[in-house]
């Protein structure tokens, strides 16, 4: 069905939280440098699936994960896998923005500093570059050293995107990244996603069908912990093959 080289390859993934079987035998290939959206009703497991990609899920208690998630061919859940370099490959945007408790500048410089960049000039360049690429530079250039929490929530989300981009990831994960934002901020984030997909692989979780349609190349419909259908955006939305997908798109299941 999809013949592009996969960037993330999920094989027979099962996730249990306590006794609940949250993800059931998931296999999916996320194509490189495309936008892939997971859609589905609340509680279907789409966020859980996203969180298995950067190994944040297994920080919770009582989580059991079986199967494989390969990123560039490397198994995330292998015995000797070192998680920090995998997480560095993936920028994360959460439902609400969580700026770190420091200045705007330090939020962007946080990642590069952690990975060993100390040169002031280099850091300044990085901060400016990433604030520009998220269209924040003109709005914040005069107050780089004021706390990031003083920004509007839309600006905060773009700051979080810039913070993730500053460590030069390959993949951007978005967990309903616009659900707390107003329509204008949402539009700006969506525009950014469209610009970013030339360079990055984007995986988004969304419950807004129109958003999935606007930004994504591929859509996977997830229902009750299973992938029901996965395909090109237009194909899946206009001509779904499965009855469940049809029902969801028409609004019968939510």
């Amino acid at each position, binding site marked *: 069905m999809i013949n592009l080289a996969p960037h993330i390859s999920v094989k027979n993934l099962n996730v249990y939280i306590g006794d609940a079987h949250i993800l059931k035998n998931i296999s999916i290939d996320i194509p490189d440098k495309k936008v892939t959206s997971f859609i589905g009703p609340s509680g279907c497991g789409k966020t859980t699936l996203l969180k298995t990609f950067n190994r944040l899920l297994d*920080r919770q208690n009582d989580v059991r994960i079986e199967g494989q998630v390969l990123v560039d061919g490397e198994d995330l859940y292998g015995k000797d896998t070192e998680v*920090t370099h995998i997480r560095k490959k993936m920028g994360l945007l959460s439902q609400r923005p969580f700026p770190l408790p420091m200045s705007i500048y330090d939020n962007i410089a946080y990642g590069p500093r952690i990975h060993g960049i100390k040169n002031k000039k280099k850091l300044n360049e990085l901060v400016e570059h990433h604030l520009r690429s998220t269209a924040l530079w003109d709005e914040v250039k005069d107050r780089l050293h004021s706390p990031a929490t003083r920004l509007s929530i839309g600006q905060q989300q773009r700051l979080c995107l810039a913070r993730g981009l500053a460590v030069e990831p390959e993949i951007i994960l978005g967990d309903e990244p616009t659900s707390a934002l107003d329509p204008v901020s949402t539009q700006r984030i969506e525009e950014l996603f469209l610009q970013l997909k030339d360079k990055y692989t984007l995986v988004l979780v969304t419950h807004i069908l129109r958003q999935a349609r606007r930004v994504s190349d591929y859509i996977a419909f997830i229902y009750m912990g299973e992938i029901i259908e996965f395909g090109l955006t237009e194909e899946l939305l206009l001509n779904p093959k499965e009855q469940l997908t049809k029902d969801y798109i028409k609004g019968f299941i939510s």
Partner: protein
Amino acid sequence: MNIRIVKDKAVKNIFLLLTVSSVLLVVLIFIGLYYKSVPILHSTSLSHLLFSSEWKPSKAQFGFAAFIAGTLWVTLIAIVIALPLSLLCAIYLSQYAPRRLTRFLNPLIDLLSGIPPVVYGVWGVLVVVPFIQEHVAPHFVEYSSGYSVLAGGVVLAIMIFPLIINILGEVFANVPKELSEASLSIGATQWQTIKYVLLKKSRPGIVAAVVLAISRAFGETIAVLMVCGNIPESPHSVFDSCYPLPALIANNYGEMMSVPLYDSALMFAALILFVIIFLFNAGSRIILNRLERRMN
């Protein structure tokens, strides 16, 4: 008027009354202590009371400097020992420890805070005092009985240890986990995340925990009284005995009627304690507000 509206108003006013009266109690205690201290304040100047270490009740010499010094020293030592340990312990419990372990350790820590102070005192006398006398003090001073500032500080440290851990546990739990995840998702290690995000975000809470612990330590009486020697002289080293204010009050309250002005002197000791704790809390409140404002 509707009966339930009347009830609603009545409840509101009763609660207001209860709140005001409990706050009023603090004011009344202050007034009571001040009233009782008036005789000694009339006979001796305030600066003499606070800065002289002459303590001869039978000759009407009342200088509290040694007691104040004793209180501050013991508290300082206790915090210096307890804070780093409980900070590391709380970090481990909240960030690293598997849940099986915390399920077992948390009740144990709660138990520590439930042990009566006198038991800590006995343990101090039987274990800490001889240990200091035989194994620690000889390396530093010629002679120490072991009943010392250090013994008081160690016992007190262990008593405030569970208090600080509990508060810090709450403080860390209140840091949104998404904030840590944001840091981790950039490729930071757990330790980097703790250092740069968790501790930074928790700074006001850590200050609050220390403040509560210090307030508690100032007032702790019986356990400290049992191990710090109770000699009314300013300590020159941590191996000297000292005599904190609460111990002074507790030890002499029974016989205060036999010596003129003694009762007033003891009430003044209580007043000093009250004022120290009040000023300390007020000061830390200001620091906390400033910290919180800087973060938001």
